[in-house]
């Protein structure tokens, strides 16, 4: 309402208004969640598949939009990320049923799935639409309602994507309001959503401040910490193979995946061969002077220079006046230290890769641990090696929950080049001050009610196995009496005989069951 009095008495920024807005969205989500909970597997998957299909179809459009709006990333790579977060994501979980009860014959426990309810989900500017896709589909697979809060820098593409998915979900029979999006996110408004007792769980992907705030909200939260992945190349690695994977990973969407390699640690005896292969694969190895220029450009007193976020190597080189070949994909900066005093050993969401040369494996592993102490604990690491001893030692030493072997870390840790669960929410577990240490997926959005009989009970689970949980689906539409086609006679046709017969049949069945049970005893 563009109204002059609204300007005179404007309460839109008041706490009361913020809370009321959050309440309204969350209460609508609650209705959707409660009705969604009535859906069976077939109705649920119908909505999931419809959403996955449109998400896939629009992957390119939204990739282009996200790059245009945020000014960073690579359209072709974002398209791949969006696509992977649509149909392939659903297919990955196709055989896992989060909707029907399951029976553990051995423990004689029957488990009934109970969705979280209302999910409040943050989407970052780095992987905006892919995260929206991923969180929406994970919510739908588990019959949850979701409210998306986009990063302001990627607001428009996320809002549009969420609305597109919402329309597809509703057209395929999902409850209205099951997917909602905050069109004008602001810190105080997001704070209301996070602190509200109407939010069941927060799925926080974003900057540390936002993730810590999610954990401080008093609500259950699944948050992820920052990455800062070490990649270790030992003397047994194939240098060409390792270099190609590292470049493929670092240049993928210009390092916007938080699983990208931050510092390459190589043992001295492999250094020369690896450097040569890195150059062949598109790396520019910086001189000391160039490294210093980059260090100053990328890190300000307040931290990483967001101007460089997701920019390509050539763009960054041009900013600081480094002359590079037009085929350059990654800028490699040799560093002599890992730790507080070396900014280039921090997380860099751009294709700049630190390079540290270690004397031997033991030293390399200590350096990798040091890197993760600085930041990125619980996140990801990579190793290129053909020595299983080294691989196992490394994996057991670094404080992360996924170690990618002989593969690009960006794609590998996120589950796209490995058999890990595909995700845009990397659980950083206890190392990373988070609640879950694996790749987040739909399984984290549902709890199970367990039906447990007495230990000594001789009951077989046959009867209970054949007693379906009631999943009647959407609510019938209430009449609008007097409105053509919407009156009680149209929507509640009376068929008294059928009703009475059904009732009789039901009673007959109950009595028969009871008799059978009594006879068994």
């Amino acid at each position, binding site marked *: *309402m563009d109204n002059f*009095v609204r300007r005179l*008495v404007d*309460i839109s920024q008041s706490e*009361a208004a913020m809370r009321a807005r959050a309440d309204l969205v969350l209460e609508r989500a609650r*209705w959707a969640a409660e009705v969604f909970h009535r859906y069976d597997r077939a109705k649920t998957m119908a909505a999931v598949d419809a959403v996955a299909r449109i998400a896939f179809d629009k992957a390119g459009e939204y990739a282009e939009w996200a790059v245009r709006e945020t000014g960073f990333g690579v359209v072709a790579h974002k398209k791949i990320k969006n696509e992977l977060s649509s149909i392939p994501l659903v297919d990955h979980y196709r055989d896992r049923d989060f909707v029907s009860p399951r029976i553990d014959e051995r423990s004689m426990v029957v488990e009934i799935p109970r969705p979280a309810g209302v999910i409040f989900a943050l989407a970052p500017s780095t992987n905006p639409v892919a995260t929206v896709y991923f969180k929406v589909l994970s919510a739908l697979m588990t019959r949850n309602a979701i409210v998306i809060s986009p990063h302001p820098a990627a607001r428009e593409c996320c809002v549009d994507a969420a609305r597109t998915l919402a329309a597809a979900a509703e057209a395929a029979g999902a409850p209205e309001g099951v997917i909602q999006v905050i069109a004008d996110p602001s810190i105080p408004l997001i704070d209301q959503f996070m602190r509200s007792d109407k939010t069941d769980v927060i799925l926080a992907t974003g900057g540390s401040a936002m993730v810590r705030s999610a954990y401080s909200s008093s609500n259950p939260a699944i948050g992820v910490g920052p990455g800062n992945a070490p990649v270790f190349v030992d003397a047994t690695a194939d240098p060409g193979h390792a270099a190609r994977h590292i470049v493929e990973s670092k240049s993928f969407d210009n390092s916007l995946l938080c699983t990208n390699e931050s510092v390459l640690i190589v043992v001295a005896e492999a250094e020369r061969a690896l450097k040569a292969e890195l150059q062949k694969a598109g790396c520019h190895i910086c001189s000391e002077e160039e490294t210093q220029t980059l260090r100053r450009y990328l890190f300000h007193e307040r931290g990483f220079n967001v101007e460089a976020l997701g920019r390509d190597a050539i763009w960054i080189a041009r900013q600081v006046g480094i002359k590079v070949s037009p085929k350059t994909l990654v800028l490699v900066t040799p560093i002599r230290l890992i730790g507080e005093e070396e900014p280039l050993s921090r997380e860099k969401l751009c294709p700049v890769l630190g390079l540290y040369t270690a004397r031997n494996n033991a030293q390399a592993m200590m350096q990798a641990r040091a890197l993760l102490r600085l930041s990125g604990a619980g996140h990801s690491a990579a190793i290129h090696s053909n020595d299983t001893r080294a691989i196992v030692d490394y994996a057991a030493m670094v404080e992360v929950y996924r170690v990618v072997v002989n593969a690009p870390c960006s794609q590998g840790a996120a589950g796209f080049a490995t058999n890990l669960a595909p995700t845009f929410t990397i659980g950083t577990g206890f190392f990373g001050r988070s609640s879950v240490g694996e790749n987040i997926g739909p399984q984290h959005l549902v709890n199970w009610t367990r039906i447990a009989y007495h230990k000594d009970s001789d009951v077989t689970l046959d009867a209970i196995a054949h007693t379906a949980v009631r999943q009647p689906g959407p609510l019938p539409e*209430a009449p*609008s009496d*007097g409105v053509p086609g919407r009156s009680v006679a149209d929507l509640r046709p009376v068929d008294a005989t059928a009703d009475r017969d059904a009732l009789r049949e039901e009673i007959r069945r109950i009595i028969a069951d009871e008799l059978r049970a009594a006879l068994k005893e």
Partner: protein
Amino acid sequence: MSQEKQDFLERSKTFWNPGKTQAWQDMGVDLVIDRREGYYLHDMDGQRLIDVHLNGGTYNIGHRHPELVEVLNQATRKFDMGNHHFPSLARTALAEALAACTPGDLQYTMYGSGGGEAIDIAIKTARNAMKKRKIVSIVKAYHGHTGLAVKTGDERFSKLFLSEDTAGEFVQVPFNDLNAMEDALKGRDVAAVIMETIPATYGFPMPKEGYLPGVKKLCERYDALYIADEVQTGLMRCGALWAITRYGVEPDLLVTGKGISGGMYPIACVVVSKERAGWLSQDGFGHMSTMGGAELGCIVALKVLEIVQRPEVISMVRYISNFIRAGLDQIMAIYPDFFTGIRQHGVVMGLEFNHPEGAKPVMKYLYRNGVWAIFSTLDPRVLQFKPGVLMTQALCEDLLRRVEAAIGEARTEVMGAGSRRTR
């Protein structure tokens, strides 16, 4: 009942209204509302009640909605009721907002301080526009208690005060009877037909398909105006901002009250097309009201209009009406010999019981079960059941649980303990 409440009720009888105070005690409802919040009322003795009476939709978005409290508080730093003679920022802003969201070419807003006054203004405006005096309403209509409004309604409220129509200017016809309506209009001496879109105090009998559009057609044929009384049915209660639009009727005048005030600051509005608002140009001082359109009320009303038009609200209304209907259908299946019917459009509902005064014991047992709903004054077979448009899922579920218990208890009282449930 606490001693404190007993003492209070005596004082209420002494200084306020002995008849009304006593009548509630006789009906088994000893409610004295103290604190209120959302859809809850708290009795002075501490009992909590879910409010599904809402004073006819006054508390449509809940009691003391936090945004209304905030906007009213802020407004008092600058505004008061204002001076009714002068152009006013707040009155004009609300009028503009109403013009934007009312059907057809409704444009000007005239203000009263309550629904009755607004109905009087609507009737006066229609008479001025049509140069005719006669007003047609329906039998058992209710449009308020002021001078003209009371004459449109049941004599229950006019005879007592020797205020019933004696000049033959107010004609009443049965609801849902187009022939009777045509008979009343065909003399071409009628200025306007006034209709509640769903007659509330009469227990929400629902208009038959085609009835309201039929009335509008007859009005056009016989040069009468159509005044839509949307006091109880407007503001999203029927799943559209104004219920009348769901029946496909564009009224000549639309009256809104109760809910538009948010229950926070009295105000009522009549919205009229330019064509029918002749007196506003002819003699703008023709009708005055010091408190009508008080600026604080306008500011609250603007916020109410903004809230109910948020996209989430229409969705909430659908969920609430579907969910409550499904639950009531189940309850009806349990007590089919007592709870016999449901009239419904959105969250406007009438529950029918098969006893001439069946809604009264239901009201009493609902009260005992923590729910406040009122019987229909002009048809006590029917309980007015009016959930709010922002009710939460948990509250609706709790409401149904209490309603089921209360109807069972009322049924036992009315029909005897010997009879049994169906299931």
